[in-house]
């Protein structure tokens, strides 16, 4: 345990092991839910762009279904969604508490948000580039990977950063209903036991995590604008 913790955050020092467990839980929730969100939200966002009326593979039914899913789950505030999803979470994950129980609602909370963000990023790809790719005989998959995702990469990095930061926020809310992590540590030990130093450390920690994510996102996004990241 670093010495400054004992000096400045004595109550955190008293619960050091629990604090470390909470940190690990947040880390696990973030990466597991984040990875799933990246895949599902990415796929949904791409599908929305591809299947729209003037998309490269129009499909009214798929587009409509995705629209409805995205809108419904985006309309429900996350804390309500958490409670609402408990039965579903139990049937999928076997439990509604802990990291395992948190991943399901986190994915449901983050996917619609990420879907819209990806959709917006891809919609910014100049339609002329798509047309050029079609004129060169590219297939639907070819256009998705070689034009849409390739050209929108800086924007995709940007929106992924935003989603990652908002996911950190969601993991702490999930803490309020028994998910564990920094959120529940702050509530259970900071608020309930009136240890302000515990809350303070949690705030500082979140600030650092969020800033690091933002810094990484900005750097990558800038490094890929109008060029490849690693050019041969």
């Amino acid at each position, binding site marked *: 345990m670093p010495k400054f913790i004992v000096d400045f955050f004595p109550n955190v020092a008293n619960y050091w092991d629990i604090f470390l467990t909470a940190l690990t839980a947040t880390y696990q929730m973030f990466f597991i839910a984040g990875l799933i969100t990246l895949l599902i939200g990415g796929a949904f966002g791409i599908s929305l762009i591809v299947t729209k009326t003037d998309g490269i593979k129009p499909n009214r039914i798929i587009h409509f279904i995705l629209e409805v899913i995205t809108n419904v789950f985006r309309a429900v505030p996350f804390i309500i969604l958490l409670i609402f999803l408990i039965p579903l979470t139990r049937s999928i994950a076997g439990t509604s508490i802990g990291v395992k129980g948190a991943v399901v609602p986190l994915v449901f909370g983050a996917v619609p948000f990420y879907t819209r963000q990806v959709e917006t990023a891809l919609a910014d790809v*100049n339609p002329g*580039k798509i047309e*050029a790719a079609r*004129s*060169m*005989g590219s297939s639907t998959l070819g256009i998705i990977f*070689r034009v849409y995702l*390739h050209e929108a990469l800086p924007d995709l990095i940007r929106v992924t950063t935003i989603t990652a930061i908002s996911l950190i926020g969601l993991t702490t809310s999930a803490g309020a209903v028994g998910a564990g992590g920094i959120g529940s540590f702050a509530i259970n030990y900071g608020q309930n036991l009136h240890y302000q130093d515990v809350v303070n450390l949690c705030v500082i920690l979140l600030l650092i995590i969020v800033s690091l994510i933002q810094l990484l996102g900005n750097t990558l996004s800038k490094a890929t604008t109008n*060029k490849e990241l690693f050019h041969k």
Partner: protein
Amino acid sequence: MINIEHLDKTYHLKNADVHAVDDVSLHIESGQIYGVIGYSGAGKSTLVRCLNFLEIPDSGSIEIEGFGKVSANQGSLDISQKKLRELRRSIGMIFQHFNLLDRSTVFDNVAYPLKYTGLSKKEIETRVDELLDLVDLADKKYVYPSQLSGGQKQRVAIARALSNNPKVLLSDEATSALDPDATESILKLLRDLNKRLGITIILITHEMSVIKSIANRVAVMENGKVVEEGDVYDIFANPKEEITKKFINSSSALSNITKLIENKTIIPTDSKLVKLTFTRDSVGSATISKISREYNVDVNIMLANVDVINADALGGIIASIEGAKENVQRAIDFLHESNVKVEVIHHA
């Protein structure tokens, strides 16, 4: 050779149907530079997109040399998706805004159509180098589009369009976003490619100057229909439709006369203001001095212009003819007989 028969395309918008291409039939010979001109909304863009089926026509057929005839029926084609992509690969296309991938180098842009076609890395590299030499951009191989000028971007786009050795190149307003110098150099490149590779070029534009400087034949489009079609020189020498005349005027210095007529003082009284057109049959003779000598009329030349179209001269003069009424008429008759086209623009 490209044979377009009874091509039809209607867009069904919310409050109206737009008949973008209305029963168009055209025949384009191999090795030609074929211009399609029209105002925006005339349907020329849709027409050219139907040629590689970026737009699927409602009905009609298109026959492309080496590819057979493709027919459209109620908005679907009688070839498979796979065959369609093959067809698109055999037709190059360039655009007004170049449509390059901003995150790819010049090399990767030109290599785009070559990748995933079974060619080895080495073969792709060789082919791209060839193409970059062809468009004179070998030194920009690893540069990104954001570092290029408009003209250079269009050169990259041309190299990319040519990568699969197409027999046909479609050009959609390829020079409209360029400055005059870049326009000139791109047109020159297209002309060279047409000569060296024998590639058929179909270019659509709203600028008559582009048609004049590069096309062999031209089709004029209005409201989805081809209203006039023919050899570029003949169309310039003898336009029939109002819209064709308008386009020709837009590229001719002689159109300035309308401004001069407003300022009436410059037109002598008792005179006829005429526009004389000298085609290849009459451009060489000294007709003007002849009429003033033989019919005792004064000819005051106000504007004169010679266009060179497909290496033939087309002369235009705006002049006032002054003199006794019957002499003026006889002079005009004589001009007619000498194969000079005479249009009376104004009586003073």
